[in-house]
């Protein structure tokens, strides 16, 4: 599936091998897939999508899913 995404497999190998938090890994993978999808666009409308991905992962990254404040 990763190969078919069109990202150089060497990048995936590095991402898989890198010792990091699994939430962070999943976050990075999502960003890479998003960027791959929009690579042909000079200025992709990334902001909203990024907000969504950041939002989704930052709660998990904090170790809980409680929305304290924002």
């Amino acid at each position, binding site marked *: 599936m990763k*190969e078919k995404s*069109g*990202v*150089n*497999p*060497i*990048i995936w190998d*590095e*991402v898989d091998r*890198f010792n*990091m*938090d699994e*939430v*962070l890994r999943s*976050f*990075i993978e999502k*960003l*890479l897939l998003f*960027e*791959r*999808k929009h*690579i*042909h*666009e000079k200025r992709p409308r*990334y*902001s909203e999508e*990024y*907000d969504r991905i*950041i*939002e989704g*992962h*930052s*709660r998990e*990254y*904090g170790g809980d899913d409680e*929305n*304290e*404040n*924002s």
Partner: protein
Amino acid sequence: MRMRIHKIELENYRQYHGKHVIELSVDNIKNLNIILGANGTGKTNLLNAINWCLYGDEPSLKKTRPELQQCVANVRELHVNGRAFVRVGIFIGEENPTYYFERAVSIEGTPTNFEIIRRSWRAARRYDKNWQTFSDNSWDDLTIFNILVSEILPIEIRDFFFFDGERLDDFFRKGMEHEVKKAITKVCHIELLDRCISHLEDKISEIRRKFKGESSHLEEINNRIEALQKTEKELEESIERLDKLITDAEKNKEDIEEQLRQYEEANIVSLQEERDGLESDIEHLDKRIERKKKDLTDYFISNAILIYSIDALEYTFTQMEKRIKREEHPPIPPDIKDTFLKELLERKRCICGAELNEGSKERESIEKLLNEIEPISVISNDVQEGYFELSTMLRRCENFAKILEDFNSELEELNDERAKKAKRLKEISNMLLKVPAEEIQNLEILRRSYEDEIRRYIERRGQEQLKLKTVRERIRIEESDLRKEISKSKKQRLLKLKWSLCEDAINVLKTIKENVINNIRAIVEEKTKEYFFALHWKKQDFSDVKIKDNYEISVLGQLGEERLGTLSAGERQILALSFMAALSSVSGFKAPVIIDTPLGRISGEPKKKIAQSLPYYLRDTQITLLITDQEYTPTVRDSMISRIGKEFELVYNENDMKTEVIVRGDAK
């Protein structure tokens, strides 16, 4: 599984008048397609057609004849109808076609004065058995088309799959380290990592701004960071500009050095040396000719008198001979030597044994004879001597013509040699007269100015890099202060988490980027070396191929000496082919490879070796070679026959101004 081009459809594209369909071999083992054609039959334009269809441009014309870009229509069609519909369609897929791309234009006018009146595109993707088709009658929005093309081969890396064999060694010219780095960066997909990092940095700036309301101190730090980041960006852009300027100046300098080398190597030095040699040879020949003429004159003078008297000499000789032989009277008296009689008298004994004592009768007889023959003996002696002398003189006369002939022929040879050398000297002098001394001087001035420019740019880049380092350090300190301030705040926990997530992701991505670049450099180095040694015909001359930290390519000889600068054009092409093959193999894209003029610079045995090895080392890859008949010799064909899937021949008909694609049949 590798992507392959299944079919190319051409309609009125440049030489290809009317409709043409080229169905390539997609066989796994017979992975080679040969498209053979003489110069001008449309080989390069076939590659242009593929590029035009997939990417909307024609890279080979961009570099060589930019004026030919845009008017892709067949000239004959335009002449006859005043308009032309041009279309290129390509079917791509693994075992079966799963992608279709088509680009078309309608053109009106003449080849030099034309107007594109309509553009259209079509792209289709097959999912299971169904094709999903997209199309539009304008090229304004090609988003879907580009997405589908980039699934097969993104434009950024197509140069490593579709390339001109004769232009390959541009990669290894001086100052091209930047290009090598760019190539490696492109195939690494580093752009993806850079875009992630850049967008995350934007997000962090947004998040930071949300903290502004917390305290005035936070706001001050934020403002400082933003100002520093602005400077950081400006400095980065400035360094990038300087990098580009340095690369351009190095390329220009290299071009000028190449021109100067041509003058030095081909014209000035060797011609001057040859001229000096010829002048010295001619001087030497002149001396020999003079000497020979003098010898001839001396010989002639010393023998001329004989020649003028030859009739008299011959007459005298004949007369003497007749008389000596007693064939005519009076004969020459017998040659009775008086010395013989004198000796008998001294010995007092005759040859008959009789005593010749004083007063004896026998003695008196001999004394009388002696008195009679003494004057005759002198005459006879003189005649004999004269006879031999005359014989020698007549022999000299006989040889005179032969010797004169020898003299003349030697002189003729010397004069011929001199004339040849004088002719060449004149040619060289004329050539040297044409060498533009002023142009060489101007080129040298230009070369030095580029050298100064490069030095100045490097100096400025160094200063900017130092400033950038300082600014980044200040940003790091400010951000650390900011973090401390924010950590004091009990609020905005989620915002802090977001910041932390983005910041950690940036750090990880930066490390990954570094690792990927280093890994890919190491893999490309290893594969380039592997291919180079496999393809090279004199591998024992080399010990290693390296891609250094600064992306400089190095080829080492057996003693560890640098050999890159001394590689022949053919060897450089092998290196470039190896580098390209390495890059395409690590690109992550399994696209087909098309090489225009793959063996153009390679001759003889090496050509055979490459022909044998290339399809094997690019196995599992569909390779299409656009090849001339000079390249595609029977030996080359025999060497790759087991890998050839299909052979086509392009034949250009000058009268009809069109190319025909002839299938030569499946290679057996």
